[in-house]
Each structure stands twice: as structure tokens, then as C-alpha cells.
């Protein structure tokens, strides 16, 4: 997996992780992958819901040491 960009949104509370994820997504090209690191638990449901609504694909997600990692491929 090629990660084009990483967004560190750890420590940020809702809605900032999504606000920043959207901005970061706007800055990459179709098919590229954004890595997002968040600690806000609301993101577990909100990031996939936001991504799906925008046609993006979550290609992987994991939790390590209380940090959630999302790998989102931009819609083509």
C-alpha cells in the first residue's frame, strides 16, 4: 500500500478529525491513499460513514495503543 499523505489528528475531538480528513483528502488525487491517525472514539463510525458517503474506500483500519488508523483511498 502506497501512502500518499498522513494526517495526524490524534487528540482532536469531533468534528475536527473529519474536518481535517476532508481537507487532506481534497489535497490528494483520485486513487491515492490517505493515512489518518485519530484517538477520538467517535471516529470509528464517523470516518467510514463519511468516506462511504463521499465514494471513498477504507482499504484498511486498525487500532494500536488506543490510536485508530484509517487508510482511505480517494474516489475515482
Amino acid at each position, binding site marked *: 500500500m502506497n501512502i500518499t499523505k498522513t494526517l495526524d489528528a490524534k487528540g482532536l*475531538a*469531533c*468534528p475536527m478529525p*473529519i474536518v481535517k480528513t476532508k481537507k487532506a483528502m481534497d489535497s490528494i488525487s483520485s486513487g491515492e491513499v490517505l493515512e489518518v491517525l485519530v484517538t477520538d472514539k*467517535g471516529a470509528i*463510525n*464517523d470516518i467510514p460513514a463519511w468516506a462511504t458517503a463521499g465514494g471513498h474506500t477504507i482499504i484498511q483500519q486498525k487500532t494500536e495503543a488506543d490510536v485508530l488508523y484509517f487508510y482511505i483511498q480517494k474516489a475515482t
Partner: protein
Amino acid sequence: MTVNKWTAAKVARKVIDQEELFILDVRNTDAFEDWKIEGQNFEYVNIPYFELLDGVDEVLTKIPADKEVLVVCAKEGSSIMVAEMLSEAGREVGYLEGGMRAWSSYLEPIKVADLKNGGELYQFVRLGKGCLSYMIISDGEAAIIDAVRFTDVFLDFAKEKGVDIKHVFDTHLHADHISGGRHIAAETGATYYLPPKDATEVVFPYTPLTERLNVKVGASQINVEALYSPGHTIGSTSFVIDNRFLLTGDILFMDSIGRPDLAGKAEDWVGDLRETLYKRYRELAEDLVVLPAHFMIIDELNEDGTVARRLGDLFKENHGLNIEDEAEFRRTVTDNLPPQPNAHEQIRQINMGKIAPDEDEQTEMEIGPNRCAVR
């Protein structure tokens, strides 16, 4: 336009007074469909906040300009963002301080009745989750039944009323919410009672709550009498207060009955549930007023916000008390049960004293409706 901060207490007033309110819920759709602020005259629209990042212009037509509008989210951050956007678009709106977390935690104490010699009975209505707790007050003393985990609410209320908490009871080992009972007892020196059959795995000391245990509150001797009524759990115990009120715990609700499966023993306990509802309760006076540990839907609230109905009326109207055929009863309470409450197994572990997660984790576990009943 201004953005107004609403407290959960203000929203609770709207619910109890059956006022109108338009709620713009900006949580994701799954969360909204699972659980929301219920009001008889509330209207809702659910638009997740992440669909509004580019602006609210497209949704303005969905939001009435001539009604009070409250924006709600999980904690409050997103609702503030959306409320500010609406405000910039010329709308006057409010947001719920603390979001659905605060709503889940809010308790409204409502007086159910005056008891003899100046005694009082209060019901603490947790509107956001449907939990009901009770406080009996008499001559400077108090007893509490099925306290939820917000111990300060009970301690402050007792202080305000100038009463010492002497007895704290849990009708059973709860699976849908975290009990505050033993913590209140520890703080006040009160006796904490739990049914021994539900307490085989608890890791703290307690006083056994057994059949016919009789406790008097205050000099006027308000009677609190235990009645063994298994079925939701094997230890479930009801109380008769002052020979007027029947506190049913999670055995009998207004329009539903307790489910027997939350400790994984539906098949074993269904017979106990039948026995309690169709024999033990039938022997009681029909004029007793039933006070349960939960309500399921907001329509069950009386005009004053209490949840209370005459036992005899429930015998007539509650479907769960009117299933003559035993096999059909068994099917009703074991098949097609609603989903189990969020994190119910972890909540049981907390209530046994086996685990002690932090405040945030406890809040997360308790999110959502209580789901203790079967209709």
C-alpha cells in the same frame, strides 16, 4: 443570529411538559436510528455533520424557521459547528451542551407521592436511557432503590432534603446500566443490599436482600418490604412501599415485561418469570401502584413525568400479563428478543466489582437505550 446553549435539564422540561421542539441530529445515521432524544411533540431531521462541512445552504429548507431548533450530536463539538453555521445563515438555533452523553446522564427527580407523616417518595427519571431510581424520605432518613451511577445526584438531593441515606438497595444485578448503589453506601455509611442469588460472583461485601426482609425508614416507619420475584434474573426482588407502591425492578414494566436472557439463562429463568408475574404478583392488592426500574418509550410517562400505574390496570392492559398459554409465554420471552443492551456483559462485570473502567469508558458502555423488556 445567536447560538443558544441548552442544558439537558432544559430539554428534559420540554419532554415532560410535552412541548414542541425541532431536533436537528447531526450524528451518523446508525447512531440516530439506534437512539435519540424522545419527546411526544418533537420533530426530527438527521443529517450527519460530515455532510455539512461545505455549508448548510442545501439543508435550510429542511429546518423550520418558525420553531425552536436544537442541534444535537454525540458530545457537542459537531453540534456547535453546525449551530454556528446555521446562525451565520440567519437562523436562531440552540445546541445541547454535552450532547447525547449529557442526555444519557441526566436525571430528573419527580415526586411520586406524599407518604404518611410527612414522608415522600421520589422517582429519578433518566430520560435519555429510560432508567428509573427511587428515594424514600421520612423523618430525616432516606432509602434508595436502583440508583444509577451518578451518585452525586442522589447525595446532593439527600443533602437538599436534609436526610441521611440509611439503606441502599438494588433489586437485581443490573445488565443495562452501572449501579451507583454500593458507592452511595460507601460514601454515606448506609447499608447496601443485593439479592444473594444475583451476587454469587460479586467481589465486595453486601447485606443479603432476602424474601420478607423488612426495613423501616425514619421514625414514621415507612415500610419497605422485600418480595422475591425472580425471572429477569434469578435474584430479582420487588419492594412494597408503605403498602401502597410496588417497585417491580426489571420484572414488570408499564407496557412490557422483563426479559429473562441478559445473564444468558433465558430457558432456565422463563419459568420463574411466569411464576412471578402470573402467581406471586396476582396475590398482591390490585390497588398497589407499580413503579418499575425502566420505561421503554416516552408515551409511558404520565402528565407529571412520572412512570407509574395501578397494578390492576396492568393486569388488564399489559400484554405480557395476558398470555394464558404457557408455551406461548415461553416463546414470547425467549424468541425474537430485541438486541441486548450495549456492553451488557461488561456492565454486569462492573456491577459485580470485577472491573472498574474509567468514567469515559463507563459513559460509552451505557450509550443507547436500556432494552431490558420484551413486549
